[in-house]
């Protein structure tokens, strides 16, 4: 890479805005940008944010995308064909025999490939990997041609037990490749080498479903960037928070399902580490939902699979994001049992909260925040509206909450915020206390536009140590794109009992998969400090169906990992103990799967670049104080321009801090201090 090109751009394309983070590494300078997204033609919106740049100066663009996410949620992927084992063409449609809700039997399910687009060919592999019936290439070619003729734009080949032996699948892919008209062709063992046919089939089919769309989107985007003179590296953020090359993204688009939010969590982790908070719960309050994610010792926690919608399962490691239906647009209502509920029903962005005056008539959390004076009605964030309609918000709260509960309007507005806070606190407990983590060791990190309104209440409700508000909470995901490491994951089911284990075979498999994963990282040609390989084994007592993830503390050196039975056994027992209270001595143990992750560590990003400039001062930051409702009464509350506060500034609650993309509330009894990186650290006021 030429040393003159030091510009990196992180670009997070969301449903409403495209957020950009420009970073000049050589000069340590950065700039943030926000332009409206252009749905359906994202490349145009993306490029409009870059127009004042000479793209020839840009070394790297890293992109967090919701194109895949939206295609999944809106069911706008490609028409796909599926070739299966005889007797199993309905796997995608039969799911795991679940239903939508515990209570209530209504509702149906439409799979992403209709039944007439799924055909069977003769073949069978047994659970031990024996090929009982070899696949016939002629039959596969014919099936592929039939599906192509019916309009399939992508083809997924999904055979039973291919995790145990992919030979038939590989032969089928080779045969189909001879007649398939495009590159959108894959088999399940290529996408997920793991036992459980529905999860593997669903992940594979969803990958095929996204391939034409995401592939063409990324292709067009890259072409446009190149045409504008960009000749640097172009990368995509995966759902696991790592970055992959655009080529990998085009073949594994299913790994972009949580691309945008994952980038935010990565940035959260980096900011928190730099600020000296290794344990953090990130909280993203959006319009309809509240997303929390756990960062432990500076590393985000990954979940092995996620359900995008009923019956649509993606099994690939993803940043674990727990979502509850409580956002700014969540509707407050009194149910027929007389209980105040906030969410999950949402006013969405249309009609939106009552105070937006776009036709919404039912009060939302945002309306309550406006009525309480926490949100500045005269200068709302986002810049789309001139002012908010406080009177209309009040009237809606009176009708729908205050009157039914026998409260006055201010009590009712406060009750809405309290119930919403309790729901958010519940989500935080779910990922912390309930997994055995002590909340006093965690800080909350709000991002998105609304999270910082509630951060103070959350630390008090849950007993968290601090809240850490990043300097630019509204562009955290774009910043995460710039910070994130490269990553490639691989999983392989082995089903090897520990008793009589051939340790040499395990060692060889670990060394080989590590080498394969490194190749993927190296191919991307990114500047890296180093590549780490992390091994995790899914293990259990034989007889259990679920497994415990066991991190194996070994690395590859001189062609071996040095793994031993003793290391395996003790790693399993300590992992099992940390999940459950009782070990089961004497029962045999088994290795179910090997998970290998190659992580290419990117050069350190110095977050001190974000800190306020020399011109910042308390005087320049002070705005006129106003009345805000806290704990049953109005309090005179100081108001500040957040970005103008200098390092070391200390603001006692009650106070409101405003910035273009967020509003921060410091509750009475709390104090906020600006740290060396420009973060605001909110904690309890020492008596």
């Amino acid at each position, binding site marked *: 890479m030429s040393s003159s090109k030091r510009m990196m751009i992180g670009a997070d394309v969301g449903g409403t805005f495209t957020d950009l983070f420009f970073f000049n590494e050589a000069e340590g300078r950065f700039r943030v940008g926000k332009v409206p997204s252009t749905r359906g033609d994202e490349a145009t919106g993306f490029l409009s944010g870059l127009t004042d740049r000479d793209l020839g100066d840009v070394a790297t663009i890293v992109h967090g995308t919701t194109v895949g996410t939206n295609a999944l949620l809106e069911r706008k992927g490609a028409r796909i064909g599926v070739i299966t084992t*005889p*007797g*199993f*063409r*309905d*796997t995608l*449609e*039969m*799911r*795991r*025999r*679940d*239903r939508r*809700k*515990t*209570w*209530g*039997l*209504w*509702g*149906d*399910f439409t799979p992403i490939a*209709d*039944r*007439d687009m799924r055909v069977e060919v003769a073949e*069978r592999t*047994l*659970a031990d990997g024996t090929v009982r019936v070899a696949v016939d290439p002629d039959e596969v070619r014919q099936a592929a041609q039939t599906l192509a003729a019916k309009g399939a734009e992508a083809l997924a080949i999904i055979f*039973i*037990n291919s*995790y145990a032996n992919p030979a038939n699948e590989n032969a089928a892919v080779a045969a189909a490749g001879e007649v398939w008209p495009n590159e959108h062709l894959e088999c399940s063992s290529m996408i997920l080498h793991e*036992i*459980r*046919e529905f999860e593997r089939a669903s992940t594979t089919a969803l990958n095929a479903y996204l391939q034409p769309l995401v592939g063409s989107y990324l292709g067009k985007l890259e072409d446009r960037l190149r045409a504008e003179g960009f000749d640097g590296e172009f990368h995509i953020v995966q759902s696991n928070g790592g970055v992959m090359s655009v080529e990998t993204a085009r073949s594994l688009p299913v790994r972009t399902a949580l691309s945008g939010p994952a980038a935010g969590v990565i940035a959260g982790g980096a900011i928190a580490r730099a600020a000296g908070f290794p344990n953090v719960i990130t909280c993203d309050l959006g319009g309809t939902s509240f997303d929390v994610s756990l960062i432990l010792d500076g590393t985000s926690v990954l979940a092995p699979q996620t359900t995008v919608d009923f019956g649509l399962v993606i099994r690939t490691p993803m940043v674990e994001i727990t979502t509850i239906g409580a956002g700014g647009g969540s509707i407050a209502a009194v149910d*027929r*049992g*007389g*209980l*105040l509920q906030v969410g999950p029903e949402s006013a969405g962005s249309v009609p939106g909260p009552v105070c937006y005056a776009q036709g919404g008539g039912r009060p939302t959390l945002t309306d309550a925040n406006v009525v309480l004076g926490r949100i500045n009605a005269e200068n709302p964030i986002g810049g789309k509206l001139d002012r908010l309609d406080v009177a209309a918000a009040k009237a809606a709260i009176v009708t729908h909450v205050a009157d039914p509960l026998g409260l006055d309007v201010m009590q009712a507005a406060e*009750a809405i915020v*309290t*119930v919403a806070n*309790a*729901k958010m606190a*519940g989500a935080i*407990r*779910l990922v912390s*206390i*309930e997994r055995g983590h002590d909340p006093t060791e965690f800080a909350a990190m709000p991002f998105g536009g609304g999270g910082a309104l509630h951060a103070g209440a959350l630390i008090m409700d849950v007993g968290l140590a601090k809240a850490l508000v990043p300097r630019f909470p509204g562009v955290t995901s774009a910043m995460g794109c710039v910070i994130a490491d490269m990553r490639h994951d691989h999983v392989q089911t082995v*089903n090897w009992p520990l008793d009589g284990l051939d340790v040499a075979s395990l060692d060889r498999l670990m060394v080989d998969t590590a080498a394969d994963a490194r190749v993927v990282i190296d191919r991307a040609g990114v500047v890296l400090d180093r590549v780490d390989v992390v091994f995790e084994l899914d293990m259990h*007592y034989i*007889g*259990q*169906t*679920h497994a415990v993830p066991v991190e194996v503390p070994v690395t590859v050196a001189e062609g071996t990992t040095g793994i031993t039975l003793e290391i395996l056994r003790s790693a399993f027992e300590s992992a099992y103990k940390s999940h*459950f*209270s*009782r070990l*089961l001595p004497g*029962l045999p143990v088994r290795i179910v799967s090997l998970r290998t992750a190659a992580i290419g560590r990117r050069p350190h990003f110095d977050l001190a670049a974000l800190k306020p400039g020399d011109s910042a001062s308390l005087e320049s930051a002070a705005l006129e104080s106003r009345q805000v409702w806290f704990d049953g009464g109005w309090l005179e509350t100081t108001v500040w321009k957040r970005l103008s506060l200098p390092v070391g500034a200390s603001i006692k609650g009650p106070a409101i801090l405003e910035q273009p993309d967020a509003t921060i509330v410091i509750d009475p009894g709390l104090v906020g201090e600006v740290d060396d990186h420009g973060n605001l650290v909110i904690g309890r006021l020492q008596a």
Partner: protein
Amino acid sequence: MSLDPVTLAVLKGRLEQIADEMDATLFRSAFNPIIAEAHDACHGLYDAETGATLIQGGTGLPIFVGAMAFAVKAVIDKVAVDGGLNEGDTFLFNDPYLGGTHLNDFRLVRPVYRDGVLFCWLASVGHWVDIGGNVPGNYNAKATESFQEGVLIPPVKLIDAGQFRQDIADILTANSRTPDSNHGDLNGQINALDLGERRVHALLDEYGIGTVNQALDALGERAEALMRENIAALPDGTYSYDDYLDNDGVTDAPLLIALDLTIDGDTMRLDFSRTAPPCAGPLNIALSTATAACYVALKHVFTDVPANAGCLRPIEFVIPETTLLGVSAPKPVAGYTETILRVIDAVFGAFAEAAPDRANGSPYATINALSMAGHRKDGKRWVMFCFFGGGLGGNPLSDGLNHGNNPISTATIPPAEILESAYPVMFTKWALRPDSAGAGEHRGGLGAVYEIEALDDGGADVFLLGERGKFPPFGVNGGGPAAMNRFYYQTETGEASPPLVSKVTDVHIEKGMRIRLESPGGGGYGDPRNRDPDLVARDVCRGYISPDSALADYGVAVDGAGQIDAEATASARQEAAE
């Protein structure tokens, strides 16, 4: 002074989270797939004095939600007589006449003390894979006494003032074909209770016992108020529905399940007096089980009522012990799942009359408990046990769900690959069953076909307990019935089907031979001749229904490629209208 609505809302969430987390702990640490994958378990908090349900997890098996209160009550009754209840005790039992359901369901019940005073009970129930008896997996379709179904453990102390009693655990181990699995599940249930107890204490530390008690009272009152409101919205009157079980597994004669449902203002009476008397085979259930089944049905109709004892207050149950719904020991009860599904269907059937806009077609309503068992080359026994899916009923909102689970369950089915890797079997078919759905404006969901081949030299013994082989899942509001349950097995001379249809105990298949289970779909909703012909053609294209069924059931003339003959369709529909 009553609790403010805000604290109440907060505490409701906190309490429900405790039960949910107990569920999750057991699911993750259980050994047998019936708990780990199929979630055949349940946890909750129960009233210190009465055992009534205070809080129930949202992820546990629905049928247990109604039955657990009886289990806790059984322990309360025992200590009232015997005395000797201590802090640190945990009771264990599987007596189905006291605690409901069947012998496989082991209940652990633990008192939670606060400052030396009993605050509440915690309970955990989970389905263990085998507990002795004549049939591996305990679904003995021919049992005439509970002694043939397995070992019955009355309430005993498994943990006595903090001391784990290994002698009790040894009795359990000695009486099962799958002792390791049971041992693992038992430990998982103790994990769940340990965790629940810690969480309850943390909550009491934070809010105080008075506030939490107030919240629990208020939640019960609110559930009652909601239920009364729901009932009051229905027209007064008596609505009856009669359905039948195929047979009791011993004698081939149908068993009447009859409900007279009376709405009177804001109260409801469920009267099952006309139901058949206790039967010889295992299709009986205890009063606690029958009550729990009604609760499940009502929760599916009134989905907004919270799961606590308050919602049962406006309801009177008439379940005489002269019927097969109110039996006591030692009447066999292993097939309880089939009977409660019929009880639930009777409630759905009665609602179709009382409130057609709340009705759905019968949701296939048989569990199809299938065991395959044998001995491996090393002599070790293997028992594969699984429940199978079917179609849910057509409903006002949509067609029925293809291949769903039963109303009593939220169970996911174990993957074929997991079963094939654990047992010497191969699934040669795991597919939707065409023409199995009840016709309707909204048709039922499709049932499934599962075909399994034995791979080991020793072959496999096969046991099945299912229903709906002679009386199909019904449709509502003019919807048609679904296809019935079918079971076939290969013999030296061909394919056979058992006389009692889906109750099987004496079948053995050799290596390379197969069995095939074809499960029912769901009943239809509304007149099939009102179904959009394009949807009928689409169903033909997808192979959900045959062209023959399209014409006969829907009055749509369509060829195999989905081309509609408009003229023939018009005349077929016209003909039907006349």
